[in-house]
């Protein structure tokens, strides 16, 4: 008898006891506690960035304030100017755009091409080769920096942008990601039909596969750009102080003050370095979230 009651209570509108089912449902819904925890988590997520901006717009001594300063001051532009005077930040921004842009275009294009071939074209050893791609995804290629550095020295590329671009031109992950997407999204009949109509293989790729691949290309592009933009170890090794990326310039700025760094200056640099990705985040944050979440259930 009691189990029957339970059933009615929780099975929602079908319950026969009037207000009771709704009560149960209310109890299930997210309460004040849920929102409080989420707000606290949001505060922790946002505080370091906001506080950086606050200090960057004030003076260095304001880092000592208790409780911490939470309202911006008026010195942001002055500090920004000082950043540009201390390190070649304008060059750094341009360099980072060139590096990240070139890497993104290359990774997206070659991944789509290879991913399409693995997903939709039949050829000998395709399974074995795809397995090789998957296996190499797990290899920490960053551990190869020593031969890579020797290679760059050999080619006299140290200090140039191509020394950062070339090692980023392809990723095994990109190929796998595009393959997983295209295998479901393009019907085999569509490719057959294009062939029947006399389209060349390249024509089929260009006119059928590429348009269908666009959403996944956008997601892969976003993440590739961010990874290239935020990379530090390798650019720090091969780019000199006079031809920096945003990250190496910021690191140099951070070290510039010696024992007594100018906190406002350094944090102004940190804020500046974040702004381009922050803009990207506001424009495409939804796609970033969707990309991470779709990547998690596909595959």
């Amino acid at each position, binding site marked *: 008898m009691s189990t029957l009651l339970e059933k009615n209570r929780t099975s929602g509108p079908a319950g026969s006891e009037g207000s009771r089912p709704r009560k149960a449902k209310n109890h299930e819904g997210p309460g004040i506690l849920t929102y409080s925890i989420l707000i606290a988590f949001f505060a922790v997520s946002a505080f*370091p960035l906001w506080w950086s901006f606050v200090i960057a717009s004030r003076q260095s001594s304001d880092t000592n304030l208790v409780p911490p300063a939470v309202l911006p001051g008026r010195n942001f532009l002055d500090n920004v100017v000082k950043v540009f005077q201390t390190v070649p930040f304008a060059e750094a921004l341009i360099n980072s755009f060139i590096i990240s842009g070139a890497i993104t275009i290359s990774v997206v294009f070659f991944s789509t*091409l290879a991913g399409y*071939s693995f997903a939709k074209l039949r050829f000998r050893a395709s399974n074995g080769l795809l397995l090789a791609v998957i296996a190499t995804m797990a290899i*920490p290629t960053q*551990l190869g920096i*020593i031969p890579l550095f020797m290679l760059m020295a050999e080619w006299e590329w140290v200090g140039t942008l191509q020394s950062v671009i070339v090692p980023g031109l*392809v990723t095994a992950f990109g190929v796998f990601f595009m393959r997983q997407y295209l295998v479901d999204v393009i019907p085999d009949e569509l490719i057959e039909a294009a062939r*029947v109509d006399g389209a060349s293989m390249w024509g089929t790729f260009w006119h059928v596969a590429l348009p269908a691949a666009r959403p996944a290309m956008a997601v892969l592009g976003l993440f590739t750009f961010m990874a290239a933009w935020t990379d*530090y170890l390798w650019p720090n090794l091969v780019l000199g102080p006079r031809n920096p990326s945003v990250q190496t310039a910021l690191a140099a700025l951070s070290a510039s003050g010696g024992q007594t760094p100018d906190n406002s200056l350094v944090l102004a640099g940190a804020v500046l370095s974040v702004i381009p990705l922050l803009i990207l985040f506001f424009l495409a944050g939804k796609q970033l979230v969707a990309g991470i979440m*779709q990547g998690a259930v596909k595959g």
Partner: protein
Amino acid sequence: MTISTAVRRKPTGLTFRQKLSRFDYAASPYLYIAPFFLLFALIGIFPIVYTFNVSLYDWHLLKGQGDFVGLANYVSVLTDPLFWNAFRNTISIFLLSAIPQLVIATIIAALLDQTLRATTFWRMSILLPYIVAPVAVAVIFLQIFNQYHGPIAGLLEAFGLDPIRWTFDVFPSHVAIASMVNWRWTGYNALLLLAAMQSIPRDLYESAAIDGASKARRFWSITIPMIRPTMIFVVVTSTIGGLQIFTEPKLFDPRTYGGGDKQFQTIVLYLYEMAFPRRDFGQASATAWILFLIIVLAGVLNYVIARAIRTSADRPVRRRPVPTLPLKRGVS
């Protein structure tokens, strides 16, 4: 008459156009994957393999290749107390980041896996730290964890506690560095776990609720087992990334390679110091390969533990492992 039927016919008597089409059909698949494999061989495979070659020689950054020494570089590294110091630091920082991260990410994901107001806002808000580059994270947290000034010192003072020497002492420095990793990655991992939670069929919860299972019970008996593949994925990626941590400890004290007493020198920092300031490419390469093997070993260990949990739990529900966006977490 279509080309594809012509292809299936005998090759004799084909026009040039038809031959071209045949070639196009046969060669294109290889041509499309060729750029990836050629480039990857050059920038991905060759460096790792050649690292092993370098590790067998006396090899100086400037003087170049010296005598063949066999495994002597490996012996030097493995008998170097500083290597083991770096190893301990890496594991310590990794544990301080991986465990809280997984727990908090699971809680946040569970909270988000409800019918909330402003769903998109919450999801975006937890991803915000992810767009901040590790260099900027390190620079910002260096200020936040300043021993004398900054928000944390202020907080400690407000509670009447002694200042903590974040950059000088071993454990506090590990906590500070781990908190940088946690700050940047917890939201990202929460989204992965949220996606896994949302793919759980809702009727499973409903029937459990009908059977009288409490909310907590449903979480432990349905949610956790169902998201286990994603949890394992999160653990594996944070292991691979955590073992290669570099930027955060490097910039936590930019003038050193992991602190004045190497109190937060990690394995990659040890490798870096060996290769560049100390110019010993041979030992640095040996370190790279040792780390490579440690990562492989950790992967195998993860797999074995995951299997053991699965068989002991003996769940009827089986899902495919969930690969996802393993974006360069590594040398961040």
